[in-house]
């Protein structure tokens, strides 16, 4: 690791803030640009390392700093009750000031809905980081729009820094070879919640809790939740099937996944089902030809989610076959024989982790308003992680 390439994105965050979203940002950035492009203290520092000089060096040298600002960012207090941001020893404050001084792009990334979090007012932050409040911010609100806002952020960053665009191209064309070791490191603390999958995906189904609250009012018989209405299962399935479909485009899983999708529409017999095969081929070739395959897939996903939802609304008996699409994709996307998958997870400070290898982690519930004060988050999909020979 001594000669590793320099990091390009510094993720600045408070450990006590919106952990789910910070992990999501980290996971998506490493997925798009590679692990070695992204610096996040919790993931990038090694045990025993003297962190102050590393933090200062990385904050100054990374051309981009994403300042993750959740609802607790501004008001977080130290054990003695004073506001952390007012302390000269606050590392968040110091790293932002360092990046601003170095002339880097400092992007406030607002984690939450508009009514929960906004760019701080100039008089709410110390002088040394005041310039940050005038920098163009980016909002990541929980819910389905994340499927669009995160890829857009990635696109903007690639436009901003040419080297990030290069890393993204290199990442999207790299294929793990047989005999490769894929390692995924996960860490959770600060009462946070982590979901991570290797050779599988993490899905967030943000709508289900909101729907169960207003759902069919059936008796809650398992745990403390009301029975999840069937409607939201179909939505979950439609989302998951759309993700499975677009992630198969442009890969060797495509033929089998395409056949499974054609079969499910034929079974439903809905209007236009005979044209699905042509549409699939069109979309697959769009992805195949795209410079930015991940962006193309993200753009196509809502289209297929809607088609799948329409299908199961018209023909609910087709729902289980959506799950079949996911299975087909999972089968085809299994790691090559001889691949060594390693998944390391560390849990500290009352954190909770849900991890899967060769399976998916599906997170349900309204991430914006968790009942217990903790928040859900998702990270690190499809086998991403450090690659070592």
């Amino acid at each position, binding site marked *: 690791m001594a000669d590793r390439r320099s990091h390009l994105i510094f993720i600045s965050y408070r450990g006590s803030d919106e952990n789910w979203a910070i992990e999501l940002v980290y996971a998506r950035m490493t997925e798009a640009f590679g692990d070695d492009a992204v610096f996040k203290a919790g993931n990038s520092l090694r045990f025993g390392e003297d962190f102050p000089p590393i933090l200062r060096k990385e904050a100054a040298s990374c051309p981009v700093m994403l300042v993750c600002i959740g609802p607790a960012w501004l008001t977080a207090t130290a054990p003695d009750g004073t506001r952390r941001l007012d302390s000269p020893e606050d590392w968040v404050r110091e790293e932002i000031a360092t990046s601003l001084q170095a002339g880097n792009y400092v992007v406030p990334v607002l984690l939450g809905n508009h009514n929960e979090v906004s760019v701080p007012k100039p008089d709410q932050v110390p002088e040394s980081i005041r310039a940050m409040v005038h920098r163009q911010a980016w909002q990541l609100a929980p819910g389905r729009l994340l499927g669009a806002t995160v890829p857009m952020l990635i696109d903007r960053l690639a436009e901003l820094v040419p080297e990030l665009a290069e890393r993204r191209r290199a990442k999207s064309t790299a294929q793990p070879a047989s005999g490769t070791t894929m390692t995924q490191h996960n860490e959770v603390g600060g009462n946070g919640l982590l979901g991570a999958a290797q050779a599988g995906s993490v899905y967030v189904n943000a709508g289900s809790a909101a729907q169960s609250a207003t759902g069919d009012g*059936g008796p809650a018989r398992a745990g403390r939740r009301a029975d999840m209405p069937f409607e939201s299962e179909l939505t979950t399935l439609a989302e998951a099937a759309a993700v499975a479909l677009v992630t198969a485009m442009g890969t060797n899983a495509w033929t089998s996944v395409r056949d499974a999708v054609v079969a499910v529409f034929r079974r439903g017999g809905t209007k236009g089902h005979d044209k699905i095969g042509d549409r699939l081929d069109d979309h697959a070739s769009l992805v195949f030809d795209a410079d930015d395959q991940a962006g193309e897939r993200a753009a196509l996903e809502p289209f297929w989610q809607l088609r799948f939802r329409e299908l199961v609304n018209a023909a609910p*008996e087709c729902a289980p076959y959506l799950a079949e699409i996911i299975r087909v994709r999972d089968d085809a996307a299994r790691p090559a024989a001889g691949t*060594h*998958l390693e998944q390391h997870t560390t849990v500290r400070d009352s*954190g909770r982790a*849900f*991890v*899967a290898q060769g399976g998916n982690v*599906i*997170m349900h519930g309204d991430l914006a308003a968790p009942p217990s004060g903790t928040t859900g988050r998702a990270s690190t999909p499809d086998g991403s992680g450090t690659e070592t020979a």
Partner: protein
Amino acid sequence: MTDPASDGDPELTDAQGKFEQRIHVENGAAYGVIGADLHVWGDGTPLYLLENWRNQAADPTCRISDLGSLRQWRRDNASLAVRWLYGPPGTGKTRLADTLAGESSADNWKVVVATPGPGTVPEGQDLRLGKADGIILIVDRADHWPASYLALLLTNALFRRRPDGRTRTRILLIGTTADDWPGLRHKLSGEQPATSSQRLEP
């Protein structure tokens, strides 16, 4: 979820390569699986937990005729079969299921137990089929599960069929009454499983 300060460290090799899952809990909780999906609420409660069946004291003398019916059900050719086993408390449903589980495990079947969350399981669970002839999932107190959880359970990667299509899947749902069975059977109809119910007389 693992207990605090424990390490889950399954390491296995199969045709798909070597899987290694290491979970280190200093303070908190973790739940890890290999070869299956996890469904989790946003507040960190698992919808359900899956764990490998652990050897219980089998009782082959228990309810011979009922056991015979379950053996036959397992041997059947259907690739996916779901059975609702029900009877009043104390009729030996759990013991019967355990006996079937023990026999199946000895016959090279994978046996997995599902319980509704929240709850704890000992450590990271390797749920891959490997070279097993089939998989049996035992869902005790199934009448306490929302039907939608059971429907979601069936989409789990745990039941991913092997490419050769030979893997047989058996799901044994255990309840005190059969009240929930017709509705669930209707929901499952799209999967086209062989469905059946079996009543244990007091």
